[in-house]
């Protein structure tokens, strides 16, 4: 430390000499570099003032007493700045630490999402989920059983960020604990509702849509718990219809029953499940209409499902000036043949 001080002393002295001699731009630039080095070496503003004074006194030994005394006063004033600077530094360190913890949590959350691909020759699945912040209150899930039946879900926890993300993991674990209901959307929602109701705060809730597709009978069963309706696309009529479901959000009351719906899926038909981050998308001109979403899907309808969801996301992101206001999740499952 003493050595550093000594070298800073010499450096400053040379710099000050050059400046007093030439008053050049170059010397001023050196001063900027010097202040960076000061910060790197954790020198406080008051130390700097004291350094200046010592160097100057050595260069001009006969300084008037008032000048020397005035520096003492300046030193006192700079102490306050020094304290604030150190506090700022410790906050910055703390923030870095929080951020890295949050990054770990976000990676853990990512690990809760399904990884394996669906292996079924006649269906095409595409899904994309993007959090508005680091952590998401949205959840999606898909799973395939030994008969090739596919279970699918999109859930949206009220709110965003860490509290929503913690709730989301509850949904994941609760679903894992009831594998036998994977293909019974209404029964599954009823079970989940009981778990959620017992475990969440009184002004939180979760909305969810759950569907199961049986590729042998080409039937899609689905039920919803207060969730933003998805869409069903019929190739034959080339039209979208709303996948409206009736049912209360999860977590409000213990005994809720959900209605199950069924659709016969023709080749080329697909269904779209989404979170309200897709439809509640707000732009400068107001809210996006649901029709705009189906228009976007239609524009890319000949592409694979994954490409469709990617492109819809990119368009919506652009419309919001690349700043998502809410978590975004979009899932498409299509019957190919």
């Amino acid at each position, binding site marked *: 430390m003493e050595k550093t001080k000594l070298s800073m002393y010499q450096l400053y002295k040379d710099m000050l000499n050059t400046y007093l001699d030439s008053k050049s731009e170059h010397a001023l630039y050196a001063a900027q570099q010097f202040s960076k080095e000061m910060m790197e070496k954790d020198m406080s503003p008051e130390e700097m003032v004291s350094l200046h004074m010592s160097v100057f006194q050595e260069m001009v030994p006969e300084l008037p007493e008032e000048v020397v005394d005035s520096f003492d006063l300046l030193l006192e004033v700079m102490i306050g700045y020094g304290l604030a600077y150190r506090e700022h530094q410790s906050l910055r360190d703390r923030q870095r630490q929080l951020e890295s913890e949050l990054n770990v949590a976000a990676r853990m959350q990512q690990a809760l999402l399904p990884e394996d691909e669906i292996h079924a020759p006649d269906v095409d699945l595409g899904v994309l989920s993007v959090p508005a912040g680091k952590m998401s209150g949205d959840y999606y899930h898909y799973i395939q059983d030994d008969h090739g039946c596919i279970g699918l879900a999109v859930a949206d926890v009220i709110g965003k960020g860490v509290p929503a993300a913690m709730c989301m993991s509850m949904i994941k674990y609760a679903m894992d604990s009831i594998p036998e209901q994977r293909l019974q959307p209404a029964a599954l929602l009823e079970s989940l509702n009981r778990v959620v109701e017992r475990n969440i705060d009184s*002004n939180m809730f979760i909305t969810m849509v759950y569907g199961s597709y049986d590729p042998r009978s080409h039937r899609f069963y689905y039920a919803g718990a207060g969730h933003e309706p998805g869409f069903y696309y019929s190739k034959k009529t080339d039209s979208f219809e709303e996948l409206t479901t009736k049912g209360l959000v999860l977590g409000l009351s213990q005994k809720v029953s959900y209605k199950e719906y069924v659709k016969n899926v023709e080749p080329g038909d697909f269904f779209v499940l989404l979170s309200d981050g897709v439809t509640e998308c707000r732009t400068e001109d107001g809210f996006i209409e649901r029709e705009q979403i189906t228009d976007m899907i239609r524009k890319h309808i000949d592409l694979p499902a994954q490409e469709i969801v990617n492109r819809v996301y990119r368009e919506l992101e652009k419309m919001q000036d690349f700043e998502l206001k809410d978590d975004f999740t979009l899932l498409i499952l299509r019957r190919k043949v």
Partner: protein
Amino acid sequence: MNLHIDIKEKAQESLVSLKGEIDVYTVPKLKEELIPVTEEPNKHVIVDLSGVNYIDSTGLGVFIGALKATDQSGSTLKITGVNDRVRRLFTITGLDEVIDIEVNEREEA
């Protein structure tokens, strides 16, 4: 965005008039003022939303909290003056079946 909250207390009735947007930013303030009203015993709490054009899901959460609080305190909760966008939200979430909601009669075109 701002939210104005006006609470008028009568003998058996509390009229809470809201004006502005109910979202993640205004929810803490709404919760702080609305929940204590719903915790009073044997009251009819009426929340007038005719001055509200937007509610997000955290806003709905407050009404759920309010509903649970009135259930516990033996009071009732009624929501009036909802516009189309807000009503849609209550319908989708199924909350229209558990909360008494009166549709705005002076709906704007």
